[in-house]
């Protein structure tokens, strides 16, 4: 569903990404790994329109989406989360999902200001959606809590809830397990699996927690210094000598 075609991104003279190509399918959970500074987040930012690639194209459902603005990328069905928690902090959990539902269903500004019956119906649809997402992510008991007061693990979860509220077909998750303990990671893995299976949403995730990546991802893309050095199933990647070399911390990879 998402095709990355020869993406190069230069910052000044520095190549953050060099001719990276990959194909992400809806049927599998995709992992994007690589040492710090490999260009993983840069690639996310290129896909979601925050950066314009120096070269190359992003094709989504056989449509060229290179150079679309971030909000347009969201509109065509690509949702994302951020490496650092990025929430509507001053608002309640419920309101976070409400705000994130802005374009689905979308109401025109005039219709919304006047408060027509169709605008009211859309509000009801959103109410349902809020319930569904909060239940799915087990956030119902926090619904009236301000986002800034949530514990870290639930903030990460709410980040995914916000992305889900945009009703994506493809979800880009930037380090969903960062700062989580083993139990939280376990529960987050379960959630991601469920989102992928039940809602049949494609998933591409960046992650450093190898255990989680190996346990979750059916296909893994490895970046190093902006270049794609390998792609394959978890087993293939685990045994790939180039990947092991790139990670220097050889044990990390071998261990799992």
């Amino acid at each position, binding site marked *: 569903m998402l095709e990355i075609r020869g993406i190069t991104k230069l910052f000044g003279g520095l190549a953050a990404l060099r001719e990276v190509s990959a194909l992400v399918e809806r049927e599998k959970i995709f992992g994007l790994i690589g040492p710090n500074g490999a260009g993983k987040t840069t690639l996310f930012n290129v896909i979601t329109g925050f950066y314009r690639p120096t070269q190359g194209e992003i094709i989504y459902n056989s449509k060229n989406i290179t150079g679309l603005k*971030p909000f347009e990328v969201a509109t065509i069905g690509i949702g994302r989360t951020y490496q650092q928690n990025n929430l509507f902090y001053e608002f309640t959990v419920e309101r976070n999902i409400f705000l994130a539902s802005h374009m689905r269903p979308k109401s025109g500004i005039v219709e*919304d200001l006047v408060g027509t019956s169709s605008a009211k119906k859309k509000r009801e649809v959103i109410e349902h959606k809020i319930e569904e997402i909060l239940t799915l992510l087990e956030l119902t008991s926090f619904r009236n809590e301000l986002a800034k007061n949530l514990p870290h693990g639930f903030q990460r979860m709410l980040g995914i809830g916000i992305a889900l509220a945009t009703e994506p077909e493809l979800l880009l998750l930037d380090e969903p397990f960062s700062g989580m303990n083993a139990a939280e990671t376990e529960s987050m893995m379960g959630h991601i699996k469920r989102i992928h299976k039940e809602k049949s949403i494609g998933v591409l995730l960046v992650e450093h927690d190898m255990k989680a990546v190996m346990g979750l991802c059916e296909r893994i893309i490895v970046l190093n210094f902006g270049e794609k050095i390998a792609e394959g199933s978890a087993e293939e990647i685990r045994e790939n000598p180039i990947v092991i070399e790139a990670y220097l911390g050889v044990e990390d990879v071998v261990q799992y």
Partner: protein
Amino acid sequence: MKSVPWVILLVGIVLFPLTGDIHWTRVLIEIFMWITVSLGFRLILTAGQINLAQIAFMGLGGYAVAILTTKLGLNYWPSLLIAVGSTAVFALGIGYISLRTKGIHFALATFAVAEIVRLIWIEWKSLFGGVGGIPNIPPPNSVLGIQFGNVISYYYFAFIMVIFSMAVMYRIERSRFGMALLIFEHTEDLAQSVGIDCFRYKNIAFVIGSSFAGLAGGFFAAFFHYVGSEDFTIHQTFYVLIYVLTGGIQSFYGTLLGVSSLIICLKMIHHIPGFNPVWEPLFLGCTLLAVMKFLPGGLISLPGRLSLERFKLDLKRGERIAGD
């Protein structure tokens, strides 16, 4: 029963001119006018953008009415409509350029716009009348048998204007559009990621807010029968900024509170013997400092703050009892 005091207040305001107190009727008219300007100012402020050209937009509305009625001999009401429309179009152009910037950059860009517009009024003498401005603006034509001449007619004109502005703000505050504006200041990236076209929304908010200034400016021209560049200087924008911040920006009710209380205070200061015009900005400056320091949420947050303090006090007392 909670609404009873509000109904009494509303009836009081509606019937106030019947007391025959010309001075305070005029004060209330001014309050209505500045509420309209300030509500517009607050709208784009909720998106985190300080529009220092608000007063220039008010002036544009005023000058447009002045030129259309005195030079082209147009009827007041269509002139007012054209004035608001042209302010909106001008704001659209300015917003389209300047809303790409944020924070202090946007404030400075709009400040520059305000100064440029003001200088054009002064220098382009044949059209805008230079320093002397445009005098002898005729009163509005009568509508529905109401003649414009005495203060009372202007009072109800201003009253309808302010009710209209409040109704628009009330709807915006409850709309998804209005709620989305609130997230732009700190989380614009995330807003984009959930599919909100922040730039477009800010432009719409900017145009609506500026049109309010244009409307109030059009009223100004009719009420004072005169517009001049001295009436629309950057000082007035800062007055508006202080009204809005003093009232509190979480809700547009804060703006009503801020504008009314401060303008009433200013008018009372005028009655102090030995009054010097310098006292006005001095008073407003001190008010702003005090509000920032002691009540960052503005007057509108006062009830909440008081109950919080009482709660803390109760908590302390409870501890003491528990300690005994």
